[in-house]
């Protein structure tokens, strides 16, 4: 662990911001305050945080239906995010997008996505634009184990590798495509093996270890910046909640869930920080307390914000 205290504490803070944001979303959804449906990122925080910590504001990401974590890790504003999932006019997308469609182009967040595998081609295009403009900007494409089977993903891996585009494909393998376990939907155990088909490096990491993700994606980002093309980084992780809130999860057992909850990425990182002397338990408690306050403010902002005027219905269909 040769990383600076600043970056380590920042990662810890961001993991907690995601954890508390999602816990709050879970409560508000249960209370009927959030319309539609939400897909929570609880348990997978180390992936988004480890990966996005390798990026700058000039770099981009494409996200998924389970996107809150990616957006927060890329610097998304908690108030604007919370207001958006409440469907409020002050939200990131004026309430037009909701949980699955949040973007912030100024931060390089090219959008969450309601379509499994939808982001691959877009990320490839963003990387193509970076290369075309002769910048060294990089795009991370987050996608799940389910999306790894989609044609769009394979097409994107192929084109990105053939054209040596600066994109890093970060696979979040949480073991299930909705209810279907990985063993039923693909013959490979490691999705990273598929990288070989496109002659790009494929790496498997513990997706519940934020530093492992940070280091693996960091290498991949450096490689992309050097113009050497894409990498596929598979992060093995697990979602604590169902595919969506309200999913009874009859397709997996409590033992399995408990096993993964014991590998909770936040306390694991906390221990490392304390052991290495980079932070004290008190400092980390202070971080949590500050994040809690931030979330309370986001919640207050979202709840007190107005719903959209009906006149907004036909706005922004065209530029």
């Amino acid at each position, binding site marked *: 662990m040769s990383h600076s205290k600043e970056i380590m504490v920042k990662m810890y803070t961001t993991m907690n911001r995601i954890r508390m944001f999602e816990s709050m979303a879970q409560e508000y959804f249960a209370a009927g305050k959030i319309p539609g449906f939400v897909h929570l990122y609880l348990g997978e925080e180390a992936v988004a945080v480890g990966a996005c910590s390798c990026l700058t504001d000039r770099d*981009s990401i*494409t996200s998924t239906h389970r996107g809150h974590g990616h957006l927060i890790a890329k610097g998304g504003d908690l108030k604007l995010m919370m207001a958006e999932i409440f469907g409020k006019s002050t*939200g*990131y*997308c*004026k*309430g*037009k*997008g909701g949980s699955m*469609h*949040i*973007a*912030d*182009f100024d931060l390089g967040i*090219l*959008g969450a*996505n*309601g*379509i499994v595998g*939808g982001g*691959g*081609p*877009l*990320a*490839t*295009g*963003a*990387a*193509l*634009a*970076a290369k*075309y*403009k002769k910048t060294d900007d990089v795009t991370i494409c987050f996608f799940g184990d389910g999306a790894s089977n989609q*044609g*769009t993903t394979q*097409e*994107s891996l*192929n*084109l990105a590798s*053939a*054209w040596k585009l600066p994109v890093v494909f970060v696979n979040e393998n949480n073991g299930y495509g909705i209810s279907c376990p990985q063993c039923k939907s693909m013959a490979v155990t490691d999705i990273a093996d598929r990288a070989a088909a496109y002659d790009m490096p494929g790496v498997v990491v513990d997706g519940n270890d934020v530093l492992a993700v940070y280091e693996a994606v960091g290498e991949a980002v450096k490689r992309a910046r050097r113009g050497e093309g894409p990498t596929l980084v598979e992060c093995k992780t697990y979602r604590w909640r169902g595919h969506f809130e309200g999913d009874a999860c009859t397709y997996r057992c409590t033992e399995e869930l408990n096993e993964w909850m014991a590998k909770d990425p936040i306390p694991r990182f906390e221990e490392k920080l304390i052991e290495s002397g980079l932070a004290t338990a008190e400092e980390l408690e202070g971080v949590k307390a500050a994040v809690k306050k931030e979330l309370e403010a986001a919640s207050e902002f979202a709840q007190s914000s107005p719903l959209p005027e009906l006149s907004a219905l036909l*706005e*922004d*269909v*065209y*530029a």
Partner: protein
Amino acid sequence: MAKKTYLQALNEALAQEMEKDERVFILGEDVGQFGGCFGVTQGLFDRFGEGRVMDTPITESVIVGAAAGAAASGLRPVAELMFVDFIGVALDQLFNQAAKMRYMFGGKAKVPMVLRMPQGAGIGAAAQHSQSLEAWFMHIPGLKVVMPSTPYDAKGMLISAIRDDNPVVFLEHKLLYGVEGDVPEESYTIELGKADIKRQGTDVTVVATSRMVHSALEAAEILAKDGISLEVIDPRCLQPLDTETILDSVRKTHALVIAHEAVCFAGPGAEIAAQVAEKAFDYLDAPITRVAAPFCPVPFSPPLEQAFIPGAEDIVKAVRALR
């Protein structure tokens, strides 16, 4: 003014916009040295290099999606699919991604891309290389849909499409590529969403699209000999659709025939007919008639294919039946 083919007009539009704006580039199937399946991008690879005229693998989703991603990142890509029929493979990237980004994200995204696709029957290419699918695209909020019928319109509208900040579906009928017409050397634009009255007339309005514009003009010549005067309107752009020009004409002629090569059922004519029925019903002296393809896939064998494609004689027949 120089005579040029529809194909040359498109090529000139691409070259002039690439010359003018470095953000404009081309990607698609065999668009490089090969010059495109029908030759529209001929010479551009040599002139602008592989950095701006990019041969892609035959993987339509990533062609369309990469264009959308690059457009959202500040470039102005012009993507080509070899045939419109291949859009089925890539529809999600077009209608769920490119078309919706702006609205979903609260007006923050701009997706200035053009997707050029040849369509239409008549070259014996059979069911998966011959369709006219404009009705699909005009149904999707966020897309613009352009289908020029003449070389002049082709050049001006392609330049407008490239400069437009929205995803534009640009549909070219294969049998129009060789059609000649007057095309100015210099660059010019044609407003997307402005219909063109291709022939003034007084008795019957014919709204025709793409290649059917030429059939309608042929029909107008034939019927003129019998003293029947057709007004031929080419919407040129189906989304946005210039309903005002169509309504004005119907208010004058009191009769409407709609001609397109797409399958009649739920084709673009259904929308045009509905617009006129809703907004100018009292002006109509006869039922609205559609001349369009029958409800079957495009057949291969030449006599069957010819029977599938509507033509001037069908328009003549439809007009005579009104009277």
